[in-house]
């Protein structure tokens, strides 16, 4: 695989017809909706999309309407990767038997953090182990937003959700976010990457690379949710940017297990003074509001410590460019 083979420019993106169409019912400022619309711009030919139950599945498929201009399948919550497995198996054998045209069809499975980190992890692990040819895109908004903002194993430490509320005794979620990409990398899969929508060119390049790879690919996209994070709808892209600048969500890719930081994170590695404090990212997010008190100050310190530790660890795991 050659790097930067695909030149996505703003002009190219604008001129390419949308495959995730307007008219869907996502909230104002929805990070995942912008992500989906952009991601579909990186498709390269015949494509089938399958989605786990969740916000992005619901908003685009309310019968008799659809936002999907390509073949699209939803069957349940925990099984986006199993859907992909079935589609892959069917296409493969029907092509072999001459029942369908002999052309490659890309398969993209999309799930939120609930459908990936939690209930969908088993099906995902199984499908990757079996080596099905598909790209799994996780849009991570750090909670079960569709059911009303409950905690998932992706919700970060300190965040208040409706099942990890900031109470008098317990100050929001006490557990750390599950390292999902490390789990996927441990599957020894050909392509794993992280991206955020603000750095859209980087994200689209990674989508395309994930599609080009033979076998399973995993893309973790960080996608802010104004409703769930209690942020202003107009600031979604700002948080998307801040997540990278604070190293809360560094972006990188691993081709055949060899990991490299992507440019925005690489620049921070090269000039550590550019790294912003985690506090900048937390401020303005209603889910972290309770942390900005004297009694919870230690949690902000803890989050900074965890972020620094993860960042250092990641730096060690990355190969020099």
């Amino acid at each position, binding site marked *: 695989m050659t790097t930067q083979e695909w030149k996505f420019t703003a002009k190219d993106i604008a001129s390419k017809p949308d495959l995730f169409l307007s008219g869907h019912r996502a909230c104002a400022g929805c990070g995942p909706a912008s992500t989906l619309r952009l991601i579909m711009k990186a498709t390269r030919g*015949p494509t089938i999309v399958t989605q786990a139950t969740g916000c992005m599945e619901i908003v685009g498929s309310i019968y008799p309407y659809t936002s999907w201009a390509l073949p699209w399948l939803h*069957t349940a919550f925990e099984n986006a990767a*199993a859907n992909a497995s*079935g589609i892959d*198996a*069917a296409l493969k*054998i029907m092509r*072999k038997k001459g029942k369908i045209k002999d052309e490659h069809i890309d398969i993209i499975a999309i799930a939120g953090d609930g459908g990936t980190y939690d209930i969908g992890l088993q*099906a995902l692990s199984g499908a990757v182990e079996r080596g099905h040819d598909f790209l799994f895109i996780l849009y991570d908004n750090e909670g079960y937003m569709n059911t009303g903002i409950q905690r998932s194993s992706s919700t970060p430490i300190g965040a208040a959700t409706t099942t990890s509320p900031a109470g008098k005794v317990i100050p929001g979620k006490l557990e750390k976010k599950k390292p999902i990409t490390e789990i996927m990398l441990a599957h020894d899969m050909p392509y794993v990457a992280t991206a955020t929508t603000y750095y859209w060119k980087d994200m689209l390049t990674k989508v395309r690379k994930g599609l080009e790879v033979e076998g399973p690919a995993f893309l973790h996209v960080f996608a802010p949710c104004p409703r769930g994070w209690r942020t202003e709808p107009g600031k979604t892209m700002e948080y998307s940017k801040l997540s990278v600048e604070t190293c809360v969500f560094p972006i990188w890719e691993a081709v055949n297990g060899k990991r490299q930081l992507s440019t925005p994170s690489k620049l921070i590695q090269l000039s550590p003074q550019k790294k912003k404090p985690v506090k900048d990212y937390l401020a303005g997010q209603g889910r972290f509001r309770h942390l900005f008190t004297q009694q919870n100050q230690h949690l902000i310190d803890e989050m900074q410590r965890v972020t620094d530790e993860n960042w250092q660890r990641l730096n060690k795991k990355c190969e020099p460019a």
Partner: protein
Amino acid sequence: MKEQPKQETIPLNGDEAIALAAKQCDVDVVAAYPITPQTIIVEKFSEYVANGEVQTEFVCTESEHSAMTACLAAAVTGARTFTASASAGLALMHEMLFVTSGFRAPVVMAVANRALSAPLNIHGDQSDSMAERDSGWIHIYVENAQEAYDSVIQAFKIAEDTGVSLPVIVGLDGFTISHTLENVTVLGDDAVDQFVGERQLPIVLTHEGKTVPFKLDPENPMTMGPNALPNYYFEFKRQQEEGMRNALKKIQEVNSEYAKLTGRSYGDGLVDNYKLDDAEIAVVVVGSTAGTLKFIVDQMRQEGVKAGVLRLRTFRPFPVEQLRSALKNVKTVAVMDKAMSFGGFGGAVFGEVRNALYDTKEHPTIVNYIFGLGGRDATPRELRKIYDDLLKIDKKGNVETTVHFLGLRE
């Protein structure tokens, strides 16, 4: 009349017979997970794949939930799909069974009927598939390995009929049929291929206004598995019921078409009546126990007792008319259930049969026998007792106990 194709009689157990039938139906995708007493089916099928005897993508999933999901996804991509399961495996599929029938995906699944935990028990009863009664699948239960083979072939023709478009469970009693070697007469590959034919896809209207085959196809995009709110959901479910109604007819058609080809038929495909025409007492049963009951009926007939058996071959769709007509002259009926409906008034089959007969003018007296749970053997002596009980009820004219447990220590 067309000449019947050459057939061959070979020793097979029920599981092997099913694997062979699936192979001969040229299935495109098999996605499955091992569970006793179904395992032989997937093992045998894996051998076919490994030896290049069949062109099938065999997906060894990490769970039954993913097995059913992959079958469904493959089916809506246009493939002919097959799987097998039992007990806990079927229970884990529960969610996807409803999704699969809701998609009108013609997946065929063999269920080697087995008890549900707890306590853990690997032996045969019908608790697993009876618990899936309302999952929207067609349920066909077989009596022996021969019928297991024949029914899988028939199942594809029923499921894939575009007027039906529903998934089919072929239930075979765990161990009693799945693991018991019998002489099974089988067709050649060509004859099966000809009988089942290529899978035909229903034609649907897409959001682009095109009329195209129902499958995931980049040239004709469609949105599958949408979110239907209260303004549409009910209509979807009503259409599903229409598929079930069509299945009643289709199962009978396929049964007689298959009889012409092989010389073998199972009643009218829905109910399999044995000496019912002049019977005064009868037992209604699902599955392999019918074989022993027929043997007892023969004994009783020699003794001058007018006894009969009704084997309910198709449980869903429920053959109300056929059942009424078959039992119209019978005075006393016992219904056997190889599963519990805890806290209910007898088992599921009992409830269904009694319900169907309620509106008939002179409906028979009906009692229920729950039996065989966790693989407990129902001996000829115990089964004979049911007929003796029916004779007593006949004589006395009243029922003391409606729901009985057969062969239970109490």
